[in-house]
């Protein structure tokens, strides 16, 4: 399973290192901290699986995949629940 941002529904920019994400349909808006923004930027480049994201984030932070897997998974669950990211 891969995750991707729906560009027709979601608009975003990075401000001061942190993503500002707007759901145009619901008009809710969200802030992602710096580590969350790393995940968001990766998803903005292309659809990715959870495993690929974990590998990329771990590489970015110089940590092992097991160290970041829990946080990445929790973030993905939040993003999917808020309909900012869709699974396919």
């Amino acid at each position, binding site marked *: 399973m891969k995750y991707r941002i729906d560009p027709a529904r979601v608009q975003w920019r990075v401000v001061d290192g*942190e993503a*500002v994400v707007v759901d145009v349909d619901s008009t*809710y*808006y969200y802030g992602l901290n710096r*580590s969350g923004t790393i995940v968001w930027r990766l998803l903005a480049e292309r659809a990715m699986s959870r495993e690929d994201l974990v590998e990329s984030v771990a590489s970015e932070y110089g940590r092992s995949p097991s160290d970041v897997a829990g946080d*990445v998974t929790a973030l993905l669950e939040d993003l999917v629940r808020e309909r900012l990211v869709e699974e396919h």
Partner: protein
Amino acid sequence: MRHGPRDPEPEVRAARVWAACAFRGLAGEPAPLPDAPLPVARLSGLGLGPLLYRALSLAGDERASLFVAEFRHATTANLLRMGHARRLADRLAAEGVGAVLLKGAATLVRFGGEPGVRPMADLDLLVAPADVPRASAVLRAGGLTERDRYPSSGGRSHSMSFVGQAGPLAFDVDLHRGVAPWPVAAALARAILASPDEVSGWRIPGIVDAVCVAALHRASQGFVGGCLDLVDLRRLTGLLDEDGWARLLATSRRFGIEGAVYASLRQASWWLGAGSPVAVGGLAALGGALGAARRALLHGLAPVDAPIRSRPVLNGPLGRNLLVVPSATRGLPALVAAARLMPFRVADEWRRHRAGDGVGRATGRVLAQVAFGAAPAETEPPGARRPA
């Protein structure tokens, strides 16, 4: 000709040098920062907070943090507006209505870059008067509801206000059939609709027309608004060569708005820097075309430091309707023209304007912090909340 007050007070001087610095930051390169004190509240009040964030952050100056909330706010609101604008424009086009973006949204489209650098209160769409009913229907079908922001206008305003709110962020649209509350604006609107520029799939006014729109908007506020129009004007006129300035002079004279254009550009030049020699010459030519007497009167009626002094400049129908926009009463029946010269009308319009939405004021309430890791403990939009 003299361009400013002889001895501006220190805070005005400081605001001015910082405003020019903020404008230079739009070029995307670090600019030298002034030594003057940074009057944060004044500059924010002028609408320059987001631009200052950009200039200061480009320079690596920690005072950028003073304005980051404004920049984030404007970014959020404009992302929402432009996302909705794309959908509305597509729906309008499907109904055969050609809409043209005006003002802040048109600036964002023309110059691209970060949406946060140009705060705006609403999205302005211009359509032909005959298309207003169809366009209104499209907006209503899109979930927006009409509201009369200026109840005493009795539906005679040059625009209709709509608001949509599916969630916490309100989304305001002004549907224009004219570009200002004067007859001349109808002719300018027709010219804009007849030959808009097409940029990135959007329709926006041509550069000269956009200058005229910004100048009329400024005139309609009595030249005491913040600096957002001025920034637009300086950016737009920065694109003009000598022929472009000649077209601007000819166009503004054709519509009888050369006073409004001159007074606005004079303020822009004073606050944000004069620009190239071509721009200096172009402004001088506009002033020269007015004649010495009218130019001198305009200097008194629309002083360059008006945005910060909040004096009731031009709060009189004579100045605004006869000197600044002399065509405002041209061709009107005598009684209607006389009504436009009544003092209460100007004061009333300004009061209603002041009662409208603030510049770039976002109305959202929810900011969910859904990221992992340590959440930053700094700025959020007012009213934002984090989930427990």
